[in-house]
């Protein structure tokens, strides 16, 4: 199919992965609001005389140009009913004031009681990266930002009413899907991750419920609250990122220098989960997570991963499991065919240096073998609604740093034999 949404012509540098005209007018009807044009600021700055200094509200502060701009931005949207409420943020349905059919999600970041150092770092990170990752069809779009009242940040985000991948994976009874559908979803996910990495951004929390679905079936990577830019060599990063089931071995071993390979492992885990419709390696603790990886994928050793034993948290069960070959996966994951399994295995390379990159993933043969990826309009969707609420729940959530994980680091040298 000529318009396969999946495969990027590998060698072209004009990046069809980005800004495809067809995707600009996405069928969910959301227009491209763009940013507040600078001309708006200039227009305001051109009229310093304030019309709003009327004497009606003497105690109120009059508005500075930049504040007027904020008011203008805010007035572009109408906030509707609440879709989700959390400690970190509330999410509302909203629409453009000029076009009520253009729906948006408005994520209102709460001033956090337990965080005393000002604006929450999650919000800062999310804003920082979403501002720079505009225009890709598989990344949630940030249309606008404005502040309301008590300096609450409001992020005007793309409206994604069909829930998330987790919802589809879990609803085994009512949602049926096949290899072509998985290929379509994986294609969209891989392109999103490719775009992040191409822009030197690590997402660091890829998992099914951060993959939201637009009205036209397009999958969108969301929640950049844990994202960060690629660091300079030698600059340490935290190892406590990525929700545990999707966390790669290097982070479990405490690596402080890492690359886009951490996201690729998560992509592999999502791939596996899409196939078997349950989390592939659902460890209850970090120790258990490592044990599961060793058992299901293979024990990281100096042989298969030179240098691994130097990582500060490196501990593995004493019984060494050799790394499983592709054939071992065929039984359980064969639904995506031999090429699909080949791709899966490459995302799950223990050594991050040997793990496939997002770009290499896009160049893999699997996308070009039968069956073709399903067109996004024809992808299975969950009947009976609930998608909006799911979006609300997903967007309001805090990200995957788990407090309990930090404590468990201390108790890492546990006896692996004690657990089954």
């Amino acid at each position, binding site marked *: 199919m000529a318009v396969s949404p999946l495969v990027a012509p590998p*060698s072209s*540098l*004009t*990046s069809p992965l980005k800004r495809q005209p067809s995707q600009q007018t996405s069928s969910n009807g959301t227009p491209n609001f763009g*940013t507040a044009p*600078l001309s708006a*600021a*200039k227009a305001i*700055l*051109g009229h*310093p*005389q*304030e019309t709003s*200094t*009327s004497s*009606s*509200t*003497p*105690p*109120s*502060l*009059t508005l*500075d*140009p*930049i*504040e007027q701009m*904020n008011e203008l931005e805010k007035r572009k949207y*109408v*906030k*509707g009913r609440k879709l989700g409420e959390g400690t970190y943020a*509330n999410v*509302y349905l909203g629409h453009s004031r000029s076009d009520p059919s253009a729906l948006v999600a408005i994520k209102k970041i709460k001033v956090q009681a337990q965080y*005393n*150092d*000002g*604006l929450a*770092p999650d919000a*800062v*990170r999310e*804003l*920082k*990266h979403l*501002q*720079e990752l*505009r*225009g890709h069809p598989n990344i949630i779009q940030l249309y606008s*930002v404005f*502040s*309301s*009242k*008590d*300096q609450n*940040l409001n992020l005007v985000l793309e409206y994604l009413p069909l829930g998330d991948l987790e919802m589809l994976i879990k609803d085994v009874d009512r949602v049926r899907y096949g290899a072509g559908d998985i290929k379509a979803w994986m294609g969209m996910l891989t392109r999103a991750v490719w775009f992040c990495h*191409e*822009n030197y951004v690590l997402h660091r929390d890829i998992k099914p419920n951060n993959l939201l679905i637009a009205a036209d079936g397009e999958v969108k990577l969301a929640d950049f609250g844990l994202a*960060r*830019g690629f660091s*300079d060599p030698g*600059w340490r990063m*935290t190892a406590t990122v990525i929700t545990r089931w999707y966390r790669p071995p290097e982070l479990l071993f405490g690596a402080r220098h890492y690359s886009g390979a951490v996201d690729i492992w998560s992509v592999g885990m999502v791939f596996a989960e899409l196939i078997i419709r349950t989390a592939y390696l659902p460890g209850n603790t970090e120790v258990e997570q490592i044990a599961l990886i060793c058992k299901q994928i293979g024990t990281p050793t100096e042989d298969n991963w030179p240098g691994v034993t130097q990582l500060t948290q490196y501990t593995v069960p004493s019984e060494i499991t050799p790394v499983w070959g592709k054939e071992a996966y065929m039984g359980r994951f064969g639904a995506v065919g031999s090429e699909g399994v080949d791709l899966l295995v490459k995302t799950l390379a223990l050594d991050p240096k040997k793990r496939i990159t997002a770009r290499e993933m896009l160049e893999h043969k699997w996308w070009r073998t039968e069956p073709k990826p399903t067109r996004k309009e024809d992808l299975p969707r969950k009947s009976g609604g609930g998608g909006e609420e799911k979006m609300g729940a997903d967007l309001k959530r805090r990200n995957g740093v788990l407090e309990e994980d930090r404590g468990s680091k201390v108790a890492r040298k546990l006896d692996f034999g004690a657990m089954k």
Partner: protein
Amino acid sequence: MATEDARYRDSSQYRLWSFSPTQLGALREKTNAAARARISERLLSHPLPTTTTSTSSKDLSTPTSNANTPDPDGNSTPALPEFLTPPEELTLVGYYTSEILRASEALHYADEIKATAAMFLKRFYITNSIMTYPPAEMFFVALFFACKVDTGHVNLSEYTKIFNKSPEEILAGEFLLCQGLRFAFDVKHPYRALRGAMMELASFPDMQSDLKRLDAAEARARKILQFSPLMTDAYFHYTPSQIMLAALSLADRGLAERLIQETFHFVQMEGNSADTPGGGNNGGGGGGGGGERGNKNYRANEEKAKVIGSQIRDKVLGTIEACRDMLNRELPERKEHWTNKPFIKTQITPLRKKLLKCKDPERWNLVELQRVRREQAARKMDSDDEDDASGGRRVKKEEDGDIFGGDLGHSAKKRKVTMKKEEDLFGGPMLVKEDPFGGAKVKKEEDSFGGFGGVL
């Protein structure tokens, strides 16, 4: 074709914070004019009492300023202060930018953080006048927020200890800064580009014998990048790679030109099948054009000429030259200039004194401003969520409330607080607190950062 260029045009640095010199000048002038107008208005409508407690109710009954008519009561005869001109504002912003660099150097912050902090301050004061918000305060805020943005977190209490500030004072300006930055926190710097350029130069066979020259050039260029582009408007007019090449050119013109020649080599090389240098994107104008295969046909060649041909090379060279001229005005040696006593005494101190006389009475005290904001917000809090939905109606209700009185008392109270604040600001001890880098006393200027090195 040149995706790297296209991607740069999608960045907030390009979308929101790149201007032509004319545009930028006009923006600054507008900001200055707008601030004058607003401050005049505010000063006239809320005149500073020359005597002690003037009847605040009387002030209130005065209709909002008729700008040129003096208060009939004559109790304040508000002669408007002399305002800072746009060039004067620019000088002071430059001064505080140099202070940010000095402080972050003493704290051994990474280059990126220093530069981000400096650019935050500069960006903020494009659409905000320093007469409106105190640069001596926003300085700390910008540095704090740059740490937060670049490292993901920062320990506020540690930070406040270093600068002898209260958490309140830092946080009061944080949101303000974010708004002034238009909620775009990413600043793209030329440091990695420099490293890449040096690696590429080192890969040229004939350079192998000249590695010392490369080291010296890199060190000098880095030094320039740590200062010159931040003290000028280079970030507003040029891309990171152009800035890098300009700095390299100042350090060693031959190396920069070599790099540009190698990148935009298309016409020079006969059989154009040679690889585009891998680091071609350092060429600023539009390198990175490798990968085109089977380019025997005419169109591909033409396309290549457009991207890495001599015409674009000359254009790039011209741009680099202009950027070089700009950087040349603030070479690292000028660091001393910005801390030079006579300079401070004759240029900066008078401007600061002038600033204190024409500052915005309503905005200057950030902590107080923040308090008023919260108070206002709290009044609306109970209906927080609904009022967004019903828009205009809610606003009307607020106005009704005002008409029925309650607010009079409130505003009178607020007025008092404001007055107290004003008095403090002109008092001696406040000055030092307001401005730990010296206030009016020149003596403090020199050693204000002396202690920081040891703290970290």
